[in-house]
């Protein structure tokens, strides 16, 4: 059985002040198997973030439904951990207490909280920063903490919305490897939204390509690169072939999105 089932999910935003409503997402179907790492790739404004927010329960679909382990999603919950593109650490809590946020909600005993936090602090390379406030951390460190905070809750699925989008290239590459390393160890089910083609290939077992607005799934491409993946693969011929193919698909969509925007204005 699929871990996550997206069944005909569509989203239309009501038009403001008499303007016609905007279709952000066409009815979309997607089945995600347990332990799968899916990246959703598409041009900006293609509704990929909307789709992820619907899975998270932060947005409601106008049609269709999302099933997690056969249970329909009705709102946000700790079984779907999320890392946002913007820095969403709680600025009044230290790194450690940010990581423990969800554990406190669950009522996990303090001793156990400490152990879990220590485990993920070590895993995400945050040792020595436990007592820092988010303000004192670099963007990369903040996103490591956000990842640790989501993982500490032991969610059934991890949702990431362009989590490394605001980071510089070097930090981004390191974070990709960190995330892959964790996934290869824990085998969490992951849904990762990005507009970066290289990132989409490097991380995924399957890349879902979305069309320009209104978004719908254009193709699903399996990435057959072996594990464990290392950064040197990014220069391999197989990687280059995949990249060429995805670049072509995305390019067509970006041009179409541009033309549509021009036609509308």
């Amino acid at each position, binding site marked *: 059985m699929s871990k996550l089932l997206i069944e005909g999910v569509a989203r239309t935003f009501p038009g403001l002040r008499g303007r016609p409503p905007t279709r952000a997402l066409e009815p979309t179907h997607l089945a995600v198997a347990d332990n799968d790492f899916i990246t959703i790739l598409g041009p900006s404004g293609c509704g990929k973030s909307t789709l992820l927010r619907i899975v*998270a*329960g*932060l947005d409601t679909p106008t049609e269709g439904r999302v099933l997690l382990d056969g249970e329909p999603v009705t*709102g*946000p*919950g*700790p079984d*779907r*951990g*999320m890392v*946002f593109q*913007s820095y*969403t650490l*709680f*600025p*009044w*809590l230290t790194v450690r207490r940010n990581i423990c*946020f*969800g554990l*406190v*909600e*669950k009522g996990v005993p303090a001793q156990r909280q400490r152990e879990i936090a220590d485990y993920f602090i070590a895993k995400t390379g945050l040792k020595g920063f436990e007592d820092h*406030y*988010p*303000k004192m951390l670099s963007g990369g460190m903040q996103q490591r903490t*956000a990842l640790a*905070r*989501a993982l500490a*809750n032991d969610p059934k699925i991890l*949702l990431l919305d362009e989590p490394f989008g605001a980071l510089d290239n070097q930090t981004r590459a390191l974070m990709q490897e960190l995330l892959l390393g964790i996934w290869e160890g824990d085998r969490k089910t992951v849904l990762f939204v990005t507009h970066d083609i290289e990132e989409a290939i490097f991380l995924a077992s399957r890349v879902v390509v979305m069309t320009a607005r209104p978004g719908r799934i254009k193709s699903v491409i399996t990435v057959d690169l072996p594990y464990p993946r290392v950064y040197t693969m990014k220069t391999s011929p197989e990687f280059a072939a995949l990249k060429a193919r995805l670049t072509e698909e995305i390019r067509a969509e970006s041009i179409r999105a541009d033309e549509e925007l021009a036609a509308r204005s």
Partner: protein
Amino acid sequence: MNLLTPLKPVSPTLRLALGIAFFVLFVAAWAAATFGGLIRPLFLADPLKTLESGWTLFTEFGFAFDVAVTIWRVVGGFILAAAIAVPLGIAMGAFKAVEAFFEPFVSFSRYLPASAFIPLLILWAGVGEAQKLLVIFIGSVFQLILMVAVIVGGTRTDLVEAAYTLGAKGRRIISRVMLPAAAPQIAEALRLVLGWAWTYVIVAELIGASSGIGHMIMDSQRLLDTGQMIFGIVVIGIIGLISDVLFKAANERLFPWYFR
């Protein structure tokens, strides 16, 4: 000169020196105008005469008691206003229905001048302490409610969403996200309003009071003692400055993540 480069920070020492320099300049101008005979003593006492008046106020007229009474009124009225405004403001910021219920009335009341209530308040509450506290209360409470409501209502939605995905919901969102996020700004709003409370207390004491700094200033007017009047005003300024510095220091200590 590079001291006047836009937005360029200055060292703490220079900052303090510049701040003190203006006080010195101000007193110097005052001294020049009065000692130089530019302004007659009837209208403006010179700095020395003012200090002298201050000394007699404390030694012969028990001015310390007046100062204490005024401080108690400010603090009392301010705490009363904060006790109502902070919880109500939080409720309005968090729940849109509560906001819709109170906001129009509070916005209307905000424009009612507290001083205009003094005659009514004397009628209702007499000329005792209750009336003084009420003037300060009316002057600060409505402003504070709206400020707190705006601060709490402006909580970053991405933080709230993050908390939802971590399993918090309902009241826990308020207690674990909205309140801690808003706390330092609420503290800053309180600091601002405490400054206003000082203006209201003097207004309240100008009419129907038998003690307090404002009462002393009114008494001095009858005697045409500009030295005492100016000293009273300066004392208000000094206490205001001290309370502001203390309040600020407390805020910075309480919320290091926000201020540092």
